[in-house]
């Protein structure tokens, strides 16, 4: 989780905010497509970790991580 948190710090804030929004509205389809963008934009590891959390619908964990990333 700490590694993912550090990786998210490198992702553009706009994308983090979109991920945060998709998580809060519970739209998995949009969330999946945004996570694909994370993978495509360079950080495949972060993308995989995010996808794993998303597939388990661990939205509390995702929200916490993304909130922290927004505050950086």
């Amino acid at each position, binding site marked *: 989780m700490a590694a993912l948190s550090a990786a998210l710090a490198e992702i553009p804030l706009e994308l983090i905010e979109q991920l945060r929004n998709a998580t*809060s509205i*519970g739209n998995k*389809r949009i969330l999946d497509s945004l996570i694909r963008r994370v993978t495509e934009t360079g950080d495949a590891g972060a993308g995989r970790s995010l996808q794993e959390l998303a597939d*388990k*619908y*661990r*939205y509390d964990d995702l929200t916490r991580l993304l909130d922290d990333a927004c505050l950086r």
Partner: protein
Amino acid sequence: MAESDIMIVDDNPANLKLLEDMLQQRGYEVRSFPLGRLALASAKTNPPDLILLDISMPEMNGYQVCERLKSDQALSDIPVIFLSALNGAEDKVQAFRSGGVDYVSKPFQFEEVQARVQTHVKLRRAQQSERALLEKTLGGAIATLWELVQLTSPALALRSHSIRDIVLRIAKRIAIGVPWQYEHAATLCLLGCISLPDEVFEKAYCGQDLSPDEERMFRAHPETAARLLSKIPRLEIVSEIIRGQQSPQANPGSEVSVTGGDRITPFSNRTGPETLPGRHATLCNRRAQALLPVQGLPAGCAGRLFSRTGRIRTPKASDSRTAERHDSGARCLEHG
């Protein structure tokens, strides 16, 4: 049919995924949550058209989630279909008691889930269009009555318009959301005056003394309006507010007088209460009190909103507390 927004709440990721995929394939917009808490937070900011809700979940079970939804006026109309492996009669009864509209047992056939979703989405849309039609019908009825007032007497219409304006100003100043009943009651509070002979209306309008017979006729105008409005379904409360406008019993302890000066309020010739001199402000207070207190605004509350020079005062903390009580009374009425 436009795309419907379905929310699924289930702590089992496999169930969420299955329902999500199948509903998306049928053209629904789907949002899924593993916890009731997250679903409630999302529904508050973006209410879905329907919720598929599991019962056995951590933190908050499905019944509790449903009860929370139903206790929120903005969300209470959303149909909830329970999906559960609990198949006892008591579980199903509990589901309906907590506000669910349907119950599907797990394991489920997707076709059944889809058929029920479709049915309840259609029902909800029908209810929404029926409500919209009812609102238009009521609006049309009120507009017709208002036009009747305008055709009968432009001066009367002007006066009614001013009273409505004042009620809205007071409501805004004491921070109550004006329930539509108050607004319509204010608009139509002088409707009964169309039954008055012109000369009686003119005398009352000018604040001249009325003979006992004329006084009796004039005092009957709220009852006349209330009788007309009571024939229109859903305007019963408006009718009662109007009926009580000259009655001190409407608000025990009210300073409203039914004798002498309680004529058609001359203040409405002016531009509004903020520019009114003392006497007009007093009359303004009377009329505002007469319309607003009926549902629980304590005596003197509206009166305190105007200074002796007729300006609307800045409310104090005690006014806010009063407004809260008033607003809760109004909400009870809406529920009723």
